[in-house]
């Protein structure tokens, strides 16, 4: 469901006009994005999930200030309804503004991703008037960071088996349970919760969605340390957390369609930004080969050629996906491509670097590739594992039979997609 279904002005700037407006806003504030300057500054290969602790908090403050300005200029929520702080324009306007934003070196606003692309759209589509008014402007102004409270330790890919319970009480609902893989929960003010209000045997038919104040008593957020050392995901323990009934989204036991909205939003996003997870990996591989002299090795030359080829193909596929119908499940195709590409880049880096990939010899831009090595496994799971993506393609695109015994629910994934840095 698109945000534009509510209120959209049919008058307003043309695409070129909105682009010019964005340029006018950006040019005095931030530099143009230059090709990675190799050999100096940070040599990060990965674009997300590197900061933690104070460094992360500082990054969030920068992001908030930036988002506030963007919102003030009417450039934050291009295709959102005017009454909730949006600009009321079309998806095409939004794509155009995002293209302009990509030309500039804007602050990393990844912390708003869950709000802008997942929780916000769910509130817009399924929330009450009060919920929309209460949260949407704050989400888009950068005041409210959101998280998803979907996955559980026993329900990873199989969300319909979740067990966190919400039971009726005088003042609304009392929630108990444990969630996991919740991106940004340690920074979030608002969580979108799926909880069981019906019989577990009913699977996806006994689930209700809620908006939860992450500061409420009984919520305990514990960052999960990943193998990269980052703490991007969290476990969230809910112990007798009281949620007013006004915070319920949709019907009781009717949470499943809301989960679906989430995933539709997520899929529509997966475009060519996948590669944005990495910082210009192919150009860096070329530069790396040149700096080590490996570029004279014809085998390396072919590996570099294939790297570039892969990058162009995933980009072209993303470009094509803009016009593709939802049934094509381009998100799943892109996810599988980008997962395989990452593994390929790791193999190329292995070939070029040898031991310098594993043991730090202190040269700029060498051991940094171990970020990719350690970050890839999470990418392959987050946003739906390879296996889930393949089932989606097999069943929904190719029309093959569903897996026998408990059917795959109508959703691809429970964990949140890792998110590229850059404009959201």
């Amino acid at each position, binding site marked *: 469901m698109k945000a534009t279904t509510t209120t959209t002005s049919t008058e307003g700037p043309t695409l070129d006009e909105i682009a010019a407006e964005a340029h006018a806003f950006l040019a005095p504030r931030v530099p143009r994005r230059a090709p990675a300057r190799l050999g100096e500054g940070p040599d990060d290969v990965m674009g997300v999930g590197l900061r933690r602790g104070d460094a992360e908090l500082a990054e969030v403050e920068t992001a908030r200030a930036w988002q506030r300005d963007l919102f003030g200029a009417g450039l934050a929520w291009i295709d959102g309804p005017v009454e909730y702080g949006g600009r009321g324009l079309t998806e095409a306007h939004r794509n155009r503004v995002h293209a302009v934003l990509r030309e500039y070196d804007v602050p990393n606003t990844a912390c708003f991703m869950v709000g802008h692309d997942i929780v916000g759209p769910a509130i817009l589509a399924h929330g009450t008037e009060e919920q929309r008014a209460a949260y949407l402007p704050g989400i888009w102004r950068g005041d409210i960071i959101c998280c998803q409270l979907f996955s559980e330790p026993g329900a990873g890919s199989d969300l319909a088996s979740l067990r966190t319970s919400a039971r009726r009480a005088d003042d609304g609902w009392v929630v108990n349970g444990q969630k996991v893989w919740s991106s940004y929960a340690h920074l979030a003010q608002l969580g979108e919760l799926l909880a069981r209000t019906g019989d577990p045997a009913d699977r996806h038919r006994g689930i209700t969605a809620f908006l939860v104040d992450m500061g409420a008593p009984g919520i305990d957020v514990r960052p999960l340390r990943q193998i990269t050392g980052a703490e991007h995901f969290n476990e969230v323990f809910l112990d007798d957390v009281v949620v007013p009934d006004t915070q319920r989204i949709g019907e009781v036991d009717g949470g499943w369609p809301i989960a679906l909205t989430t995933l539709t939003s997520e899929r529509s996003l997966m475009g060519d930004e996948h590669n944005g997870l990495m910082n210009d990996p192919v*150009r860096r591989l*070329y*530069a790396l080969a040149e700096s080590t002299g490996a*570029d004279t090795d*014809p085998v390396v*030359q*072919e590996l*570099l*050629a*294939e790297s*570039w*080829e892969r990058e*162009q*193909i*995933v980009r*072209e*596929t993303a*470009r*094509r996906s803009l*016009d593709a119908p939802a049934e094509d499940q381009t998100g799943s*195709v892109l996810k*599988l*491509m980008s997962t395989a590409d990452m593994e390929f880049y790791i193999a190329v880096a292995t070939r070029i670097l040898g031991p310098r990939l594993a043991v730090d010899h202190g040269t700029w831009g060498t051991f940094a590739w171990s970020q990719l090595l350690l970050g890839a496994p999470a990418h392959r799971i987050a946003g739906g594992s390879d*296996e889930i*993506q*393949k*089932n*989606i*393609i*097999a*069943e929904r*695109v*190719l*029309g*093959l*039979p569903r*897996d*026998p015994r408990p059917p795959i629910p109508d959703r691809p994934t429970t964990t949140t997609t890792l998110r590229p840095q850059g404009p959201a």
Partner: protein
Amino acid sequence: MISAEELRALRDATRRLVRAWTPQSADDHEAAASAPPDRRTWAGMARRLGLQGVRVPEELGGTGLELEAELVVHEEMGGALHGGPFLPVVGQAVPALLTLAGDERARTMLAEIAAGTSVVVPADARWYEPDAALPVLSDGADGPTVSGVVPGVMAGAAADGWLVPADAGGRTALAWVPAGTAGAATEPMTTIDLTRGFATLRLQDAAAVVLARDGEAERARDAMETGAALALAAECVGIAAEALDLTVAYVKVREQFGQVIGAFQGVKHQLADLYVTLESARSALAFAARSVGESPPLRDAALAVARRRCGAAAFKIANEAIHLHGGIGFTWEHRVHLYYRRAKTNQVLLDTGGGQARTIAANVAALYAG
């Protein structure tokens, strides 16, 4: 620009026509190969849909559409395993002749091609044998003649004449040798691809018309090679799509162990992988087609991407298609091996000895350096 709807209509119409007129089985293809060229189908394609003139300007009787439209037709030819001279005529000869648009003879040939009355086939070994030597053009008493041997001429035996890039004392010339010219003869080559024929053209002091020389001839020759690459890549997309469709349909009905084999997750995941492979080939083709107007490093690298990916994807998918058909997949009677044969043949014509990877590597290095 041609709209998505118009493209779809062109695709549907082509599909109906070409499938109806193309042999289905290996035996039928073998029979067709040894029969005389099928002029009725050729004329019908022109009369009914104007397929040969898809790129020929309207004033010459064509429909003057964009590359995108031509590629849709080649996709359909691949998917149907059509084996006539369409690719060399429309994919190779037409682009070459279009570079000679000021030449009256070229314009006449284009008009005849669009009308479906002439089969003009290039005879250039370079497009699949990069180091092949050119036939030699000499000035005889009665005008120019060419001598030399050109192997691997696609549909060479079905041609009304050959466009022959030739060596005129170290300079390039583009010669036209009509079929029936004394000293010009073809002989068929054995190929794994049962759906189309290749021939060796032998020229011995064969009288020729010189259509272009030097830079003009070079440009025509380059257009021939680029056109062939795009057309073959498009065929590969069609082959891949059709082989996958055929297989998906088969696994939905073939039962083993009490269920259709398409219900086994192992099979489902293989097919999902093949779908991703197909999408990557489509993207590679779209990228190359979109980049023909770009400057050389990007344009050449993009074309090489399509040459590598589309060929590899078609072969991979056709190979798995045979496999997923189980025992009947490797019988002569089932048509799935025809896709495998054509896919491999197209693949080796598109990329020989890793040349395309080297093309990408060199051009991208130039892109990044620039």
